[in-house]
């Protein structure tokens, strides 16, 4: 899994006491936007066969943003591949470092590490809130998630929110 928000969500749900499958569904739903990115990128990249299999793993927020920001298609392709390789290597090295360092930290709470994931989600969310409708959707989702949380298993608030926003988007 190489798509940050999904990874954070899966770990977050499991860490919050939720089931791995609730976390998995949330992760996949968060990853659904990458299909739209892929669609957007396919005419630019024009990749076939093995090259497409490799390119697909690199289809994420950052590579899409870097690629479509270029006016010249060859510059866009270069931006996609260079961003993809660099992020893939450093992201996974960072993940490995975190996994190894976790054994050193005796109580993550004294370092405030339980406050880090919400801040990370917020930082991922903020750039998507530049219009009024996304902001309203975000606020409504937060309220619904908090409202249902005491009554359903951990992780399930995310699925309820996903279902409601899909209905909203589709019926509107």
């Amino acid at each position: 899994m190489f798509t940050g928000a999904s990874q954070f969500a899966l770990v977050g749900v499991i860490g919050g006491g939720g089931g791995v499958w609730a976390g998995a569904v949330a992760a996949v739903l968060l990853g659904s936007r990458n299909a739209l990115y892929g669609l957007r990128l396919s005419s630019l990249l024009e990749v076939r066969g093995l090259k497409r299999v490799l390119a697909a793993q690199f289809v994420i927020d950052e590579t899409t943003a870097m690629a479509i920001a270029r006016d010249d298609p060859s510059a866009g392709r270069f931006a996609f591949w260079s961003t993809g390789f660099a992020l893939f290597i450093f992201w996974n090295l960072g993940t490995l470092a975190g996994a190894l360092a976790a054994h050193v930290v005796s109580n993550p709470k004294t370092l405030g590490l339980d406050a880090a994931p919400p801040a990370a989600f917020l930082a991922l969310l903020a750039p998507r809130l530049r219009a009024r409708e996304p902001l309203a959707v975000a606020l409504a989702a937060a309220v619904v998630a908090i409202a249902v949380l005491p009554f359903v298993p951990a992780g399930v608030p995310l699925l309820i929110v996903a279902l409601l926003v899909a209905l909203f988007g589709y019926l509107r």
Partner: protein
Amino acid sequence: MMWAGVLVASLACYGLKLAGLSLPQSWLADARVQRTVPLIPIALLAALVATQTFSTGHTLVLDVRAAALAVAVMAVLLRAPFLVVVAAAAATAALLRLV
């Protein structure tokens, strides 16, 4: 069981990317799909922010994480980079627990 879930989610996340690159352009070009899909991460990320700040397990709680989130909001409004936002929130929670 745990790793089965991780593996299935990983394969599905990869499959979505590959599908995007492989499907004909018209497939996901439907206006309703184009409108709805970007809203899903927005709603899920907002729900994650809320639940991971204001709850422990099944209980709603108000603790230092709320103050940390407030600091993160300020950092975001100041256009701070990702790592600065996260570090500021963690430092806030750590400092408040010290006092």
